[in-house]
């Protein structure tokens, strides 16, 4: 199996083998972060540009740490303080970054498909760090990596995703990835937060949190995104916690070794209780550690593929 994509735009278009290659490469990279000198020269001389059109701390920092552990140089462009405010388009920004001879753009954008559009217009590698409600591939990959690390396999596992499924790129990427690897996925949320067509992606639907937890090997708790325009259609926060919040009582009724995941940042007392978030079923902080290994793997693979591509074009 060889990785040949210059970009990572989503999980939907990946084959099972490609996902497995990212995960096994990430396993090797995880060791690097345990060394005294947490750095390898694999991307020395490469420049990674973080281009974020939405506020993000953990994803941006995770990509930055990953790139630096591979010895790449990292530049961060926050659009609130850049020429984007003056009306520059995404494609123009991308071409300017290309003219700087950067090698990889890590992009987060509030429009679905933004990363894919950018990738079509530039020759450098594009890594999707979240586009609208569409996909957030590296988050799903780190969730699956953590799951695989704990259970040794993905096939046959039952994963429940609880929360605002309708507006969640994390949910979509996870459903694509988990079903490709043979896991069963159930989504759980109030009716209004379940998008139409989710069953066609291979997930089953429930509105009953106890049912979602009953057979689950893992529950992935999504953040309630109150900064997006869901408030009007949404019951009270407290009401949500009462009906869907992941509490110790509910975890006690689930499988003994159920894993509790959360992409962060967590809202304690809204989608998850502090007791569960800090409890022994929680792998929330391990997800953060694994995120670095997974992002190192992705940056390494796309950079390699793009080098091969350029070499190929030079000889033709």
């Amino acid at each position, binding site marked *: 199996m060889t990785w040949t994509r210059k970009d990572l735009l989503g999980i939907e278009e990946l084959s099972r083998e490609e996902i497995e290659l990212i995960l096994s490469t990430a396993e090797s*990279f995880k060791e690097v972060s345990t060394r005294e000198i947490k750095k390898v020269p694999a991307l020395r001389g490469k420049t990674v540009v973080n281009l974020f059109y939405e506020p993000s701390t953990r994803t941006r920092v995770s990509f930055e740490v990953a790139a630096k552990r591979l010895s790449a140089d990292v530049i961060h462009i926050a659009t609130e303080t850049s020429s984007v405010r003056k009306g520059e388009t995404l494609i123009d920004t991308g071409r300017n970054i290309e003219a700087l001879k950067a090698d990889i753009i890590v992009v987060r954008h509030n429009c679905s498909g933004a990363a894919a559009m950018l990738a079509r217009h530039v020759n450098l590698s594009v890594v999707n760090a979240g586009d609208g409600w569409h996909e957030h591939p590296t988050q799903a990959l780190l969730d699956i990596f953590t799951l695989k690390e704990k259970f040794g396999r993905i096939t046959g596992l039952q994963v429940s995703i609880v929360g605002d499924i309708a507006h969640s790129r994390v949910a979509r990427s996870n459903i694509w990835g988990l079903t490709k690897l043979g896991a069963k996925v159930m989504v759980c949320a109030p009716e209004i937060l379940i998008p139409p067509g989710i069953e066609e992606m291979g997930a089953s639907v429930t509105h009953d949190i106890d049912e979602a937890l009953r057979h689950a090997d893992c529950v992935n708790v999504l953040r309630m995104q109150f900064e997006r325009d869901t408030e009007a259609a949404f019951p009270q926060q407290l009401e949500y916690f009462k009906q869907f919040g992941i509490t110790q009582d509910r975890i006690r009724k689930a499988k003994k070794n159920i894993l509790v995941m959360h992409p962060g940042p967590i809202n304690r007392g809204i989608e998850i209780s502090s007791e569960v978030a800090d409890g022994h079923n929680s792998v929330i902080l391990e997800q953060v550690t694994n995120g670095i290994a997974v992002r190192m793997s992705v940056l390494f693979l796309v950079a390699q593929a793009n080098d091969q591509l350029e070499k190929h074009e030079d000889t033709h």
Partner: protein
Amino acid sequence: MQEKARVLDKDALNRSLMRIAHEILEKNKGTKDLCLIGIRNRGAHLAQRLRDCIEKIDQVKVPVGILDITLYRDDLTLIAAGPVVHKTEIDFDISDKNVVLVDDVLYTGRTVRAALDALIDFGRPKSIQLAVVVDRGHRELPIRADYAGKNIPTAQNESVEVRLEETDGKDEVVIVEKG
């Protein structure tokens, strides 16, 4: 790829490894502060075997580590297919140790150069020595082996394959001609 000659068989390979083990012990005056680190893939298996040889002679198990040098190579873009990154497994401190780096074939010296860079990132060994089964010449860097099973003069269009039971099903060293 055409097999041209078989230069070592199973017994000869084992005798070579045993001799190298003796030489390592002689040069380092025993097993104190000694450790072996094999370069993936075959070097890792050879390091295990050298440890067994050393144990037979001195009844001491010296620490063995495995080094993956993919991330340190200077020729990543020259390799046709995408390289696969494997784990490095060194679960002991190499600082102030006499490290014997183990590989199957010494050729241009670039693999060893990468391995040296990688090792230095893990600590500051007292010394680093190099043990190989075959030294086939054609060095491109100022690197030499401290212990060699066999020196085999080769042409550039030939290659030397060290085959091991663990990876290839049988022990032998052959020269093959690239078609």
